[in-house]
Every structure is written in C-alpha cells, then in structure tokens.
C-alpha cells in the first residue's frame, strides 16, 4: 500500500516536472519597422549602451565618439560596457540573461571582420540592411562616401546583408622603434643600408621587401648580441594571427581551402610559407610561439612589431611613456615589388544587437559614427588609421594623420598599397558558418605547434592540420 502510494506520487511528480520543463526561448524580432524621423530630432531623449572589448584603446575611441555625438544629440545618455573575457562568448551569456535581466545586452556592439561571423550566425547582431536601404533612400547615407571594398567587409559572408558598419580600413603595418634603428645604423651610409630609408632617417621606407627585412634583422641581431641583449628577440611577428599568416600564405600562392571545399593545407605552397616564418624563429629574430616569451616591442626590448593596431597607441607607449622615437612603415612585401605580395587587411566597426529596444535611436549613433564629424572624433580618440570615408583619406590634412605626421611619423604607411590588401576569407568557401571559428583556430594552432620545431614535427603538424580541417568540414553540424 505504501509502495503503491509512493509509486503514484513519483509518477505524478515526474509528469509535472517534465511538462514544466520546456525552457523559455528568446527569439528577437527580425521583422522590425524602421523609423528615421528620430535622426533629425536633435532634442530626442534616451539611453544607449555600447559594448566594447576591454582593450584600453577601444575605450579611448568610444569616449571620444560619445563626446562628439552628445554635441549633436545632447539629451541622449550613452553608457559604455567593457565586455570582459572572451568577447563573443560573454555576449552569448548576455543574450541568455537578457530575457530575465533586461538591459544587460548593449544596444551597440563593437566587432570586426574576423569575429563577426559567429555572432551573425547565431543571431546576436541585427541585420542592418533595412536601415541602410531606408537611409540611402532618405538621403541620410551615401554609400559612395566609403571605400567599397572595405564597406563590403561588414556584410554577411562579405557579400550579403550589412551587419557591421566599418569605421576604419585596417591593414597590417610594421611599427618600429626609431631610436634603436638610428642607433644601430648610425654609421651606415644610404648605400650601405640593407633597405631604402625614408629621406633623412635610418628607417625603412614604404614598400620594402621581405628579403630586405631579413637582411636588416641579421644586422640588428648581431648588434643585439654584441650589446647585452642576447636573450631578447627583435620582432613581435604575430605569425599565428589571421591577417599576418594569411598574407604570407596568399603571397606564396597557398590557398588553404579552395572553392570546391578541398583542403589544401598539406601542399608545397603552405610548406614554403611555414619555412619562411620558421626561418625568422631559427635565426632568433622572432620568439618561438606557444611559450610565454615575446619580443616585447611595447616594452622597449623588441625593435619591430607587425600589427594593424593604431599608431597612436604605440606613439603613447613608446614616445610618451618611454622616450623612444616611434615610427612605422609598411609590412614587408613577401615577393618584392613584382611578385605577388599581399598585405593583411580587415575592418573594425560597430553593429547593433538584435535584442535592442532602442533600434532607431541606436541607428542615429551609427549614422553619426559614419559621418565626417564622427570619423574625426574617432581619429582624435586614437583611431590613427585609414578611415572608412574616402574624403578623409589624406593623412597630411586630416585629423587621423596630421598630428602624428607633423611629428615626422610616416602615416602614409596606412595608405600604401591598397591594391595589395587582402582579407582572410578562405573559410567562406566551406559555406558552413558555424565552423569558421574552428577552422581559423585550428590553422593558428598548427602554426603555434610547428614554428620553432624541427623539420619532421613541422611536416607532421601540417599533415595533421590538413586532416583535421577535412574532418571539420565533413562533420560540421
């Protein structure tokens, strides 16, 4: 009797539990209305929240932009949320919490051409195409103002609906420590230098080649060894970062995944590229990846750094904080002027979250960001790179370059060789957005585990990567 009662109770309880178990889902409205009246209502009141990554340079930018924005829309309060940890991962956490704790997800999110694919695919970003089209129709937006090739990089699959509005046309450059260059090459005449210098200096001019880069490193390496810097490395090369390794791969003709979804990793071209990078490590120009050791350019130990980061950042950390002279030049041309030599590029920009309850108001912010005032605001906040607007191109006369150029810094490195710029997009050929990240991570990992090791290990790691990419494509869900 007791047992029967228990059984009955158990069944009732279980039925109850199972029934009440379907989770609440958060499917944001995809069919929304666009109301552009707000754009011309400068007295509008409201609150917006912008989510940025926790890098301090991002904070500079957004603060400058908000300040200028408030000159136009003084009654809109714009708050900033520095998203902690892995950006995309935390955003998904926000989204999950949003339905029970509204207001956690920002209205506007920063993103870039590498990271945006995953959050587009899982629906965090709002499809802005409707806003773009309506604004063009209403004369609020003119797409011919922007560099078309870079504008496209904010679109789904780089050729579809617009999700991210680019703010700048980033490309990889070589940041230098001019003080060290001047010291090392002090007694070299212009003919003796292993590179063509910028007039009046001893730093390489735009358009130097990879061979010149290697020759230069050889001289620097010897100087370092003779001058008490035996343990230090010369270059922070970031070989495992997409824009850098992709440029090298493309220059050597390596296409990681072709249009027919064939994986072409275990090929002579890729091997040649890996050799090229490995040579730098063997000759101790670059620190071996996968360890905690770095070239430490920003700390004054290394002499060069490959990155698309803004000049203002290194000007601050080198010149203002440490009294080194800062300068920059272009990323070395892998196969020289004649051969195929690519420079890695991408865009960073702002997008809207699909859960936003202030879509129209957020759109005013995004429009402002694209305007001349907005772009100049960003530039004054430290975005010292080529802006997305074509009419702000010239570094000598515009906010983004003028200040530093007047100090003798070679800002034209950011405008050099636009025709050589190339975006990482091999993964698009798979057509499976949910593995883009895994693909990129795996190639990075291949580089991290093969560079600096012996020949046999390198071949093995490349073969493993080939196999794994094939497995990823085949098993994608």
């Amino acid at each position, binding site marked *: *009797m007791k047992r029967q009662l228990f059984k009955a109770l158990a069944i009732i*309880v*279980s039925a109850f*539990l*199972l029934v009440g*178990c*379907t*989770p609440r*889902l*958060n*499917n944001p409205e995809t069919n929304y209305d666009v109301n552009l009246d707000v754009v011309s209502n400068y007295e509008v009141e409201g609150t917006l929240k912008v989510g940025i990554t926790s890098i301090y340079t991002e904070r500079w930018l957004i603060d400058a932009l908000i300040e200028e924005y408030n000159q136009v829309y003084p009654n809109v309060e714009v708050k900033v949320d520095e998203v902690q940890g*892995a950006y*995309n*991962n935390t*955003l*998904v956490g926000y*989204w*999950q919490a949003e339905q029970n704790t509204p207001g956690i997800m920002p209205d506007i999110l920063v993103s870039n051409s590498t990271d945006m694919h*995953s*959050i587009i695919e*899982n*629906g965090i970003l709002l499809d802005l195409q409707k806003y773009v089209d309506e604004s063009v129709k209403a004369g609020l937006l003119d797409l011919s103002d922007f560099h078309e090739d870079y504008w496209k990089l904010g679109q789904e699959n780089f050729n579809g609906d617009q999700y991210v509005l680019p703010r700048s046309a980033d490309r990889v450059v070589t940041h230098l420590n001019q003080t060290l260059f001047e010291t090392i090459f002090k007694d070299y005449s212009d003919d003796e230098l292993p590179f063509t210098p910028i007039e009046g200096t001893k730093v390489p001019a735009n358009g130097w080649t990879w061979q010149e880069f290697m020759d230069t490193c050889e001289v620097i390496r010897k100087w370092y060894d003779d001058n008490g810097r035996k343990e230090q490395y010369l270059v922070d090369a970031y070989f495992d970062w997409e824009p850098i390794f992709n440029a090298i791969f493309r220059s050597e003709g390596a296409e990681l995944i072709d249009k027919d979804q064939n994986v072409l990793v275990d090929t002579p071209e890729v091997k040649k590229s890996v050799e090229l990078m490995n040579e730098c490590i063997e000759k101790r120009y670059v620190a071996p990846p*996968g*360890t*905690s*050791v770095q070239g430490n350019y920003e700390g004054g130990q290394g002499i060069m750094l490959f990155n698309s980061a803004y000049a203002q950042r290194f000007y601050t950390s080198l010149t203002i904080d440490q009294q080194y002279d800062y300068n920059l030049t272009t990323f070395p041309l892998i196969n020289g002027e004649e051969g195929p030599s690519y420079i890695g590029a991408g865009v960073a920009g702002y997008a809207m979250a699909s859960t936003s309850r202030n879509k129209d108001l957020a759109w005013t912010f995004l429009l402002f960001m694209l305007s001349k005032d907005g772009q100049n605001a960003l530039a004054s906040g430290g975005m010292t790179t080529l802006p997305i607007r074509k009419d702000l191109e010239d570094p000598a006369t515009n906010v983004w370059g003028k200040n530093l150029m007047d100090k003798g810094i070679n800002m034209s490195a950011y405008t050099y060789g636009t025709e050589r710029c190339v975006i990482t997009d091999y993964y698009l050929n798979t057509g499976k957005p*949910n593995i883009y*990240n895994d693909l990129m991570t795996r190639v990075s*990992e291949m580089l991290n*585990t093969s560079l600096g090791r012996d020949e046999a290990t390198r071949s093995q790691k490349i073969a493993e990567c080939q196999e*794994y990419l094939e*497995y990823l494509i085949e*098993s994608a*869900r």
Partner: protein
Amino acid sequence: MAKLNFAGKNGIKHVWGLVKKTVKDSYTGWLFVLPLVIGLLVFTFIPMFQSLMYCFYEYDGVRVFRFIGFENFVYMFTVDRDVPVVIANTFLWTILSVPVNLVLSYAFALFVNMKTKGMRFFRILYYLPVVIPGVVSALLWKDVFDPVYGIANSFLMKMGVAQSSLPRWFESEDFMAMVSLLLMSLWGIGGGMVLWLAALKAVPESLYESARLDGANAFVRCFVITIPMCSAMIFYNLLMSIIGSLQNFTTYIVAPNSGKGNGNSLYLYAVKIYNTAFSGYKFEYGYASALAWFLFLIIAVLTVILFSTSRWVYYGEEN
C-alpha cells in the same frame, strides 16, 4: 499487511483515518526536513530530469530548442574526435592516480599512527597542504613546473641533466604531462592520510597483541591484520577516489592550450563538458548533457561492479 477492504463507506473512512493519523504523527518531522525536500526537488530532481531531457535536444540556451532524438549520442560515439581522447585520458588518469594515492596515503597513515615521538607533528605537517586553496596550488605548481623558468628544471639542470632533455612537465604532449599532474596531486596526500587514521584506530589492539605473541613481525601484522580490518574503509575510499578522479577539473587551470594540454595530452572529461556547455560562441547544452549522462552511466556501472566484487570487504564486529 492485511488487504484493505475498500468496499463501502466504512472502507474509505478507514483509509482516510489512516491518512489523518499519519499526517498528525509526522508533521513535526516533515517540518524539520522540509528544507531538504524542497532543496532536493528544486535543485536536484528537477535539474536531473531536465538534463536527461536535454540529452535528446539541441539547446543553445537562447534560441534553439529542437528535438533531435539520439543524434547527440551518435555524434558523440562516431564523429566527435575529442571523445575517445578524453575518455582515454580520464581513464588513464584514474588508473594512474587512484592506486598511487591510496597506497601512499595508507602507508603514511600507518607510519603516522605509530606511537613514536613526533608523529603528531608529522600528522599536522602532512595535512597542511590540504587547506591551501586549489587555485593557489595549481598556479604554484604550474610555475614550479614551467619548462623554462620553473625551479624544477633549474634543479635538474644543477644536478647535471642536459638542457635539451629537460622534461617539459605540463607542456609536454605525451605521458609526462600526466606524470606532472600526478606529482601535483601527491601534494595533497595528507587528506587521504587523515581519513585512514580513524579506521586504523578502530582496529582492536588485542589482535596485534596475539599476533606479536605468535611471533609475527611488523610486515606480517600489517598485511594480515590491519589491511583486512580496514577493508570497509578501503572500499569506501576506493569508490570515492574513482568517482572523484573521473571528474577532475584541475587541468583547466594548469594545462596550456586552454585546459587541453599540448596535443590534447591533458584533456579530461570534465573540461570537455565545461567547454561544450560554457565556452565558445555557441552553448551546446544538449550535447554537454549527453556527455554528462554518459559519465554518470560509467560511474554507475563502475559502482555496481565494485559492489558486486566486494565480498572481500569485512564489516562489523564478527570474529
């Protein structure tokens, strides 16, 4: 129990009377355990049912909650490359660490239990590392075992080991990584040791006396008397250690490559579940639940096996 006769009004009154009496007698007890009942229902049983359900769904925490039947399990056993690696690593870890830890902690308990001077001092000393927080000890050992800057390798170099054959400890891609983890876990051996002390004290002294009179030396006494008398405790510790080892999460802190170890050498099951559910740009609650339930199944099977082969365990005060 006598069959109740429900026939007629009298039968129902009888049942209702029984119910009323039960409630009257029990309600104080029920009030005391009410927090437990609520807690069990809300925080244990409901989640248990839910997670069983999730196993058969694709659930990403936000947008998608789609029934997919056994697809998660098919993926787990046929397609996912990580699963065999993770299962192998976890089993290897358990087989390696459980015997070593049990034997060593037992041996130390035997020594500390001796009535010689100063053993109480050792007892305290050995237990001290157990109170050190896990995070701190993991980070500390990560630093000690750093291949370049760690003191372990510096020590080995001073002993004359050539630089190229220095072990890479946690950063190695082979068995060395597991060995490093084992060495780190031996630091906390005091915890196990103290648990044994209670069992050792429960062994009646009279047995030792008669053994001594019979001329048995220390070794014989240990194997013939101490160990069999402790077998209940051995069984319990064995079971708990196995269950604990299978769920080890420390590698998340010490292993490079975000908890997986180079070449997946330290990739353990619990870390895989965590990565599937909480990392990346897509939370895969369904798949992670499937993984968790599979682990539960393994634990249940092992428990049953252990219980059914446990006739060597000696309970109670029989002679």
